[in-house]
């Protein structure tokens, strides 16, 4: 009997129960736009990658155990972002910045803790997510709008603005696979920014396109900031974090090393990294 329960536990599915919670959408959080409470995220790194039924059965037959190492990417992280604030996240490579951003974007689910977000989130984790090379520029705009949960009418209303912002009016019916990489990025940025999100998650993707377009992007971000949107900005460019952000979070090995005014946190970061 005991043997049997052991078997069952070995056969159990690799998705362990996650108690973390993400509350998305139009919840009213008062002054706050993003609230993160005691969020932890651990990744499992199996010693032997078992990704088929065959592997699992073979492993069982040899009496092997499902063993893995746990890598803790975020530990008990708590902070909140105020409405209309530009909030920076800095830290050395592998400190958990991207994990945090992915949790905020709803892509990863935390193992513990709570994340609440008031409003619509536009993740700029990568430009041109969901874009299909066989579709035309306009069709891709519709596709991306739908990914952002916009209705058909909303997308049609923004179509001209997007094409104008990206300077691609002439190419609206060209298939995406014939676009140059610069044109691709312009279209992606323009589409994402015009989706009119309440909260922007930006992961160092703004250094794209030619000089003129970069300026345009910078101006657009500034405009969005003035319009009172919330921006979470992850970057290694300390200068731009200091200039753009009101407050800043400094992560080190998955824990909060400093949190406060952008200027001071950047100072602290430089001191520790020295």
């Amino acid at each position, binding site marked *: 009997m005991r043997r049997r329960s052991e078997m069952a536990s070995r056969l159990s*599915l*690799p*998705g362990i129960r*996650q108690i973390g919670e993400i509350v*998305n959408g139009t919840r009213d959080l008062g002054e706050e736009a993003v609230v993160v409470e005691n969020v932890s995220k651990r*990744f*499992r790194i199996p010693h032997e990658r078992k*990704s*088929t*039924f*065959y592997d*699992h059965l073979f492993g069982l037959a040899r009496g092997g155990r499902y063993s893995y190492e746990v890598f803790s990417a975020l530990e008990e992280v708590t902070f909140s972002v105020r409405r209309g604030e530009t909030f920076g996240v800095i830290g050395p490579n592998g400190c958990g910045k991207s994990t945090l951003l*992915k949790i905020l*974007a*709803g*892509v*990863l*689910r935390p193992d513990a803790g709570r994340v609440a977000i008031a409003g619509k*989130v536009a*993740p700029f*984790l*990568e430009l041109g*997510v*969901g874009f*299909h090379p*066989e*579709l035309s520029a306009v069709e891709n705009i*519709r*596709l991306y*709008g*739908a*990914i952002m*949960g*916009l*209705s*058909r009418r909303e*997308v049609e209303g923004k179509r001209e603005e997007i094409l104008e912002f990206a300077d691609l009016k002439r190419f609206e019916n060209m298939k995406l696979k014939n676009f140059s990489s610069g044109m691709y990025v312009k279209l992606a940025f323009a589409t994402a920014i015009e989706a009119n999100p309440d909260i922007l998650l930006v992961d160092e993707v703004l250094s794209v396109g030619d000089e003129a377009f970069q300026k345009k992007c910078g101006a657009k971000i500034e405009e969005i900031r003035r319009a009172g949107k919330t921006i979470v900005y992850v970057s290694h460019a300390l200068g731009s974090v200091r200039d753009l952000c009101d407050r800043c979070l400094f992560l080190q090995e998955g824990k909060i090393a400093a949190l406060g005014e952008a200027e001071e946190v950047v100072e602290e970061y430089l001191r520790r990294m020295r």
Partner: protein
Amino acid sequence: MWIVEYRELIRILTVSDLKVKYQSSVLGFLWSLLNPLLMMLVLYFVFSNVFKFEDDSFALYLLIGIVAWRFLANGTMTSISAIVGRPSLVTKVYVPRQVLVLSTVLSSFTSSILEFSVLIPLLIFFGVDLSANVLFFPLIHLAFLGLVYGMSLVLSALYVYYRDLNQIWDVLLQAGFFLSPIVYPAEIVPDKYLAAYMLNPVTVTIEMYREALLYATAPSAADLAFVAAAAGAALLVGGAVFGRLEGRFAEEI
């Protein structure tokens, strides 16, 4: 509710899936109609001597079974990779992951409706008396959709973790093809196994398609209720399994 909020994305993904399916082969849509017809011809020549039908409706009997089965087989086989096949929509941005599964199932559903609608003129041509009972078709097809979607939810979620599932499922589908009354009449099943045999909701569904389309009879309320209940159960179980496994999709892809 995600279905309502993301209806536009579901529509776009379904349509683009259909476009790709029908544009990628030279014969396009025609090919998808030829496939079941050719399969029917092969099976007809093999099995028409084995099973003696009183009238000559065996070809149509086969065709209805094949077209119905194709929805299950194509629907589950394409949606098994619905999650794994679109990694950027899983790891880079949040969309309810069920959207990806539902749109592939709906694409197969649409193909299936097209195949059935070509079947109707064939039925008339071969002198089948269609009655008002044809109106049961949408009801049966919707229940079947629920069943296929529920199964697809489980399969697509498990496939993220077990990448040989498609091979296993392929074999199970082959077994299922011969465990369902497609190439043979259900009457040949020995009496002692019949009760167990009829517990398969796919069997009951295929029989109901034939009743409505071929035999001009109304499916019994008990059969309809049984398939609807099976579809409901598939949706509940599928939703629960999917929800349980969804949390680590982005890490495992």
